[in-house]
């Protein structure tokens, strides 16, 4: 048999697409699989010359999935560069919005993106292996999942005026206080949101037990782990220090995220526009790490809320107290975090300062640059601005969450392809598993444009001379 190259690629090749290339050996085994990102990152240039205060409104438009994360990271960078630390009530309110974002994003990912694979099976008919199939199989659960996302979206809308591009966080604080009525409205959805998420966790653990072979075979990778923590290595999603641990869970670094450039560098590969961040001291690729739910649950020793903390302890037992390395347990970690986010909503709403009108610091002490970091649903998000004397942006550096995970997504695809693809007859279920390896990381790849974000899959089988043998297009 001639060595073959199988390419999974969207039909449109304008920027923003991810492509998977699977290169086959002569004996039909997979030689290597690559995950390419063709995303053109022009957003930083677009921001040059803008006023700093505009950035929390501009940067959310980078992303259609997690605009709130950009909104908050941008406001934090603005706080720094304008020398305007927000009053405590404003930080509480920003964190509240952030929890809404975590709940809606994680909830949607588990039920609408990953859930159908897990609950209906990787090999299920594609016609039903989607949220509609899930609705038909378990209508009550799916309706609750829709309500979970709605609750998260409603928190964002109440605070920011709208669900998708809120206008709320500004350098120095936020532009409105929370009313008692709004607080009570949010709290009224708490019990159902928590119950739905706990039910989802039970489903996930049940699935993991029934599919132990898949869990233990599917992209089990060694890497470092990276995420924000509070003192005591408690998971933190809004504001904390970065903790980086190695593949055995040993702490490598703990640092102020403002100093990220002292610790992280970015490697460039010829076959991808997206760079590969890594821990400088270990070099590339030894210093690669994972972010997002699995990264955070592995770098944290505890959660600040009781149910989530109990779930984290249970999660850590999946690998006897060592870092959990199974890619499919990203889904479990995602749900553990959702429990924390929901419980934290209640903690925040019960804080005596949450209804305060002291929400904006208008003093200014400008600096030449500032860094804002949050834990977006997908992982650590960094906004770094350099400003001139007119308070205009001179330069921007953004490291988006999925950028950190670039290496691990590629490795996950390689691992899954080698585990499941044997020979030239590639089934739909095998392809779905390769996609699931990427989907587990919930990547944020060019949702910035709708038109080029439509991604039907095209599979190309090529021989060792790169001649096209066969094309398969997936809708």
């Amino acid at each position, binding site marked *: 048999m001639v060595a073959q190259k199988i390419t999974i690629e969207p039909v449109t090749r304008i920027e923003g697409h991810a492509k998977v290339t699977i290169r086959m050996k002569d004996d039909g085994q997979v030689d290597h699989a690559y995950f390419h990102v063709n995303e053109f990152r022009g957003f930083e240039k677009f921001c040059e010359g803008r006023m700093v205060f505009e950035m929390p409104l501009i940067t959310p438009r980078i992303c259609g999935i997690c605009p709130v994360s950009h909104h908050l990271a941008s406001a934090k960078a603005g706080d720094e560069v304008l020398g305007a630390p927000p009053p405590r009530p404003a930080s509480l309110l920003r964190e509240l919005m952030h929890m809404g974002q975590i709940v809606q994003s994680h909830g949607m990912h588990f039920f609408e993106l990953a859930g*159908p694979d897990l609950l209906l099976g990787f090999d299920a008919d594609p016609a039903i292996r989607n949220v509609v199939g899930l609705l038909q199989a378990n209508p009550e659960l799916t309706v609750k999942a*829709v309500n979970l996302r709605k609750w998260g*979206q409603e928190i964002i809308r109440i605070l920011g005026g709208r669900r998708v*591009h809120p206008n709320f966080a500004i350098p120095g604080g936020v532009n409105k206080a929370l009313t008692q009525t709004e607080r009570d409205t949010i709290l009224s959805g708490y019990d159902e949101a928590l119950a739905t998420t706990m039910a989802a966790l039970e489903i996930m653990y049940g699935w993991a037990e029934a599919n132990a072979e898949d869990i233990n075979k599917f992209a089990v990778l060694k890497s470092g782990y990276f995420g924000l923590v509070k003192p005591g290595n408690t998971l933190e999603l809004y504001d904390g220090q970065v903790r980086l641990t190695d593949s055995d869970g040993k702490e490598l670094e703990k640092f102020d995220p403002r100093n990220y450039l002292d610790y992280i560098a970015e490697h460039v590969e010829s076959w991808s526009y997206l760079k590969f961040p890594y821990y400088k001291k270990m070099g590339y690729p030894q210093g690669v790490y994972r972010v997002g739910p699995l990264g955070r649950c592995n770098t944290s020793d505890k959660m600040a809320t009781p149910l989530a903390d109990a779930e984290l302890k249970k999660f850590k037992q999946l690998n006897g107290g060592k870092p959990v390395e199974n890619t499919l347990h990203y889904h479990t970690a995602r749900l553990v975090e959702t429990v924390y986010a929901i419980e934290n909503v209640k903690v925040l709403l019960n804080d005596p300062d949450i209804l305060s009108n002291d929400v904006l610091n208008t003093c200014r002490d400008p600096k030449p640059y500032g860094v804002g970091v949050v834990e977006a649903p997908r992982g650590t998000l960094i906004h770094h601005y350099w400003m001139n004397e007119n308070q205009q942006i001179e330069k921007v550096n953004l490291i988006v969450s999925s950028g950190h995970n670039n290496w691990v997504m590629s490795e996950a695809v390689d691992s899954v392809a080698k585990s499941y693809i044997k020979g030239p007859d590639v089934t739909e279920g095998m392809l779905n598993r390769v996609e699931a390896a990427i989907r587990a990381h919930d990547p944020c790849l060019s949702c910035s*444009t709708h038109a080029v974000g439509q991604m039907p899959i095209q599979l190309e089988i090529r021989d060792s001379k790169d001649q096209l043998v066969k094309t398969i297009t997936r809708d």
Partner: protein
Amino acid sequence: MKTLIFGYGNADREDDGVSWHILHEVMKRNRLEVSDELDIETYDEARQVQYVFQLQLTPEIADDLKDYDRVCFIDAHTGAVPEEVHVEQVSKGFQKSPFTHHLTPSSLLSIAETLHQKIPETILVSVRGYEFGFSQSLSPKTASLVGKAADIIMQWLEQEDSPAAGRIS
């Protein structure tokens, strides 16, 4: 008859935001106030038409569809269809994106029917985009298509009392 006209795309990414410009044109022709705000949620009470512009289609929109008798989605395309201004009846049918959070009008109808056992008459007006840089203006080629798309939507709106209301003849 309640109508929803829903445009989506990123208005900061040149032609990806063409539906925002089309919505503006249709609203102006119906003598509704428009502004430079990138998010649109305007209700024309006299004609019972809701105008919405959002960055993306999201699952909760499926729940909202139950409130309408007919829906017109507007978006940009990159040449996947031959016509520069393409109009089609939308049928239900879930399409999954492997990598991103991405929904289509067909997928929304599919979810809507499963949730509420009914779906509105739905069309999609899709306009060719040529440039997707970082700008709120349209490329000249796409800008020239806005009027034609607005004509089609106005004609569709006027088909209120016909038995095939909502269908493009």
